[in-house]
């Protein structure tokens, strides 16, 4: 018997944090403009000690004003989607569940688009208007997961196949509505929206939005983490978990709301990035086991690493053009998804 200890948990997280740090440094260096490690380190320290204004060189501005925010956004989006995916997989007892497959990402995208369409018609303060898109995305995500959950229930239990099919159908239905809304929009907005929908991290954001994202992440991921032990018991089934003392209605509510919040926030700033929420938990499960007390934080790090790598490859593989990060994760993720599906059927 080797039960989890807090020391082992911290060690595993520290290793992943180290890998993430290395990935971030590589991502800062990579790109059309070459940057030396020395200059990078110097400028990073300047940003950390709030002397960012001393960065004068062009490359410094590129690194700190363009690449760093984009990487930080990638870390947020990857961690959010991976934690949401881990929660959905345990709660819905379906190893193929993730925000994208379940249609939740499309629900969030529709919510965000509706918020974008509505906001010019409302005379809102700029600070409130900034909040409207994430709020719309959250509500869209929450409504979608509620709909998919009810579609997937049969005689009081979740039916895995029906749930997955329900998610795919709901997702494509929502995608059709998004298409309809986009085609009824005129000109310049269309291209921007289409690019955003494919998942990209180049959106420039107000500092207040960054704060909202990170506070939302801490709240959402923290709430899911409080149910980690309960999610472990759910692996044996809902009835067994209840017999082992799991307050199922509470766990369900916490995970649905928190995972919808994480998905909604991620989609509102980066569009639909598929497969991260699906595959990262699987890879981490292979390495660290199925204990959600370890899986949730390691999946957060893994998601962050995966998205930063995918985005870095996306913006460097065919310079000066940039591939959206969603296209990169789909290119790598779809074959892996098929492999998992086939192995599950075997």
């Amino acid at each position: 018997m080797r039960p989890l200890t807090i020391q082992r948990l911290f060690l595993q997280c520290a290793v992943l944090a180290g890998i993430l740090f290395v990935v971030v440094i590589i991502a800062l260096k990579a790109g059309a403009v070459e940057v030396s490690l020395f200059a990078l380190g110097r400028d990073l320290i300047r940003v950390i000690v709030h002397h960012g204004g001393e960065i004068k060189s062009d490359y410094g501005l590129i690194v700190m004003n363009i690449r760093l925010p984009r990487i930080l956004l990638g870390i947020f989006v990857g961690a959010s989607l991976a934690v949401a995916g881990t929660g959905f997989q345990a709660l819905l007892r379906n190893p193929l569940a993730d925000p994208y497959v379940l249609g939740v990402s499309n629900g969030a995208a529709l919510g965000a688009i509706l918020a974008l369409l509505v906001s010019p018609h409302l005379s809102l303060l700029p600070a409130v208007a900034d909040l409207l898109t994430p709020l719309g995305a959250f509500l869209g995500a929450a409504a979608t997961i509620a709909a998919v959950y009810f579609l997937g229930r049969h005689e009081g239990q979740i039916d895995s196949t029906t749930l997955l099919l329900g998610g795919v159908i709901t997702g494509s239905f929502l995608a059709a509505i998004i298409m309809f809304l986009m085609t009824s929009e005129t000109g310049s907005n269309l291209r921007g929206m289409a690019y955003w929908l494919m998942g990209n991290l180049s959106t420039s954001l107000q500092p207040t939005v960054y704060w909202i994202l990170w506070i939302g992440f801490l709240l959402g991921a923290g709430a899911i983490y409080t149910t980690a032990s309960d999610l472990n018991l759910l692996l044996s089934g809902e009835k067994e978990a209840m017999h082992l003392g799991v307050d199922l209605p509470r766990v369900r509510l916490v995970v649905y709301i928190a995972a919808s919040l994480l998905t909604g926030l991620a989609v509102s700033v980066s569009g639909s990035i598929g497969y991260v929420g699906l595959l990262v938990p699987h890879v981490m499960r292979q390495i660290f086991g199925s204990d959600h007390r370890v899986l949730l934080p390691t999946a957060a790090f893994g998601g962050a690493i995966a998205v930063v790598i995918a985005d870095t490859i996306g913006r460097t593989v065919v310079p000066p053009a940039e591939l959206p990060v969603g296209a990169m994760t789909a290119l790598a993720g779809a074959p892996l998804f098929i492999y998992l599906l086939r192995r599950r059927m075997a």
Partner: protein
Amino acid sequence: MNTVARPVEMGAMRSPGEASRVNNEVRLSVEQVSYAYSPNPTQAPLFTLEATSFQARAGEIVAILGPNASGKSTLLKLIAGTLEPLSGRVLLNGFVTHSLNARTRAQRIAMVQQESQLLFPARAWEFVLQGRHPHGRALRFESATDIAVARNALAQVGAAELSERWMAELSGGEKQRVILARALAQQPLLLLLDEPTLHLDIAAQVDLLHGLRHLAVENRYTVVVVTHELNLAGEYADQVVLIQRGKCLRVGAPGVVYQRELLEQVFQTPLSVELGPSGRPRVNVVADREGK
């Protein structure tokens, strides 16, 4: 609170009568419990369980017997407190089981269900440690006590050597032992089992019932088991509850309940009942002239 006793091999058996001598207090009291199931409130119920009553003491094994769809599992869920009775109540040490919150209930009642599929792989010891969940806070790391309890639980069911094995690799009998060990790790007062002998070969079935008899006496559990195995129930149970189509026909010692006419009427097949070497009733199927 029970403490898990020293590890002993499964199969060590005491005489059933000894159970009642260990402790005479009534622990489980099922009082006029009834239930009705209908898909929506405006329709007539599809299934009803008529008022059922019995009592059990610490160390006793109660077997619930009856044909398919007679309401055995429903009665077990009512006892477990996961279903709310239409009328009547189930008391465990004076507390109404349905009114307990999920965590308190899991500290007092352990349920062993028919084998369920694990979503992701887990080792036997991880599975058994899940039984400690109701005894801890939400985000706990297992204590030395938890580990000792889980180890003892595995040893008590003779599965200590299975500790490091993956659950998916275990045979039906081995898996059933580990599932039972998880229930023991809950340190319950009441151990409920829903058809635990299903999918087990005869040796594993006897082994399991032997083990339950021993655990009931040693750990002073009250055990309620739903089963189709008339002879195993007759051999090991202190009391039998016989149910047919939602109606409790008789409650009592196997020797009282196992009347040929009654069992033939309930199971709709020709049977003979005789006394076995242990002095307990034994049921045989009588083939009719067409060799059925």
